[in-house]
């Protein structure tokens, strides 16, 4: 099986909406002010979006995920190294799930 017209259509659609969103974010921002409330709001979006991505994954996980997240955070704060933090998280969750039997 190589592919199908349906799959190609789905992928083309995914590409179109993704490109449209990414381009219009930049172009719409040209009309937004650089100081004041809107600018402050835009500045706070990045951290808030990342916090929203992470929080439910940690909160809905068990103790293994919570402890692994803490280990990830600790390693990142100490080393400032993204890969070391990620590797620690994966290794910790692997070992903790085995240890806790989850």
């Amino acid at each position, binding site marked *: 099986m*190589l*592919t*199908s*017209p*349906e*799959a190609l259509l*789905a*992928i083309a659609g*995914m*590409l*179109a*909406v*993704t*490109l449209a*969103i*990414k*381009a*219009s*974010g*930049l*172009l*719409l*921002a*040209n009309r*937004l002010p650089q100081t004041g*409330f809107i600018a*402050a*709001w*835009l*500045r*706070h*979006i*990045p*951290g*808030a*979006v*990342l*916090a*929203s*991505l*992470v*929080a*439910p*994954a*940690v*909160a*809905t996980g068990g103790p293994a995920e919570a402890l692994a*997240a803490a280990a990830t955070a600790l390693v*990142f*704060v100490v080393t400032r*190294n*993204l*890969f070391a*933090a*990620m590797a*620690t*998280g*994966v290794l910790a*969750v*692997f070992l903790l799930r085995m240890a806790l039997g989850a």
Partner: protein
Amino acid sequence: MQNRAAPAWTSDHFFAGARACIPVAISVAAYGVVWGVLAKQAGLSLLEVMLMSGLVFAGSAQFVALDLWTATPSTLPIGPIILATLIVNLRYLLLTATMRPLVRPGTEKRSAAAMWLLSDENWAMTVGEMAKGRGSIAFLVGGGATVWCAWMVATVFGRLIGSAIDDPTKYGLDFAFTATFLALLLGMWKGKADLLPWLVAALVAIISAKLIPGSWYILTGGIAGSFAGAIAERRRGYAHQS
């Protein structure tokens, strides 16, 4: 007139971005392999994996698309897959908006096209550069090129070894995504003013994830948290003036 983006300047920034994103690209590769393994289970062909990773290039949307994908073309929910992609990727509206200060007059179209290569990772690295008074669209694109290569190689690799790994969660690989985003978030800490918006975002996201199906929690948490941060900032601003 060669005042706009001289080649040397552009390639310097491009390669600086490409180098700076190598550590994050390794993390991207880690969950790229996970995605590839899951894509095999969802019934995507090798060609479909290459097309989706190479063209759509959006990890979280691709993860959601796998949930909806069917191995038989006639039952493939094309509309829902595109709608899910739209919803999950809506946050890029907010991310590309923050790249606005880097756009030089007259380069809007080129910069808008360059946003195709914006991922969470090279965006975060570029925001970090901007905080130091550096950063450019060329830096973003260079980082995007590194991340794109890592994503492409990793997802194809994952698809190929997919038959050997029966359960990615057994190896903790599903946690690579969370751990990477957590480290990216901590790297953005600029001071106590970040605490309130992050806590509001986390709380709203957790509640939304429980109440609303799908990936809306990214959007509700992101909007609530950023508004909380902006409101708090304005209140402090008034306090300073009085």
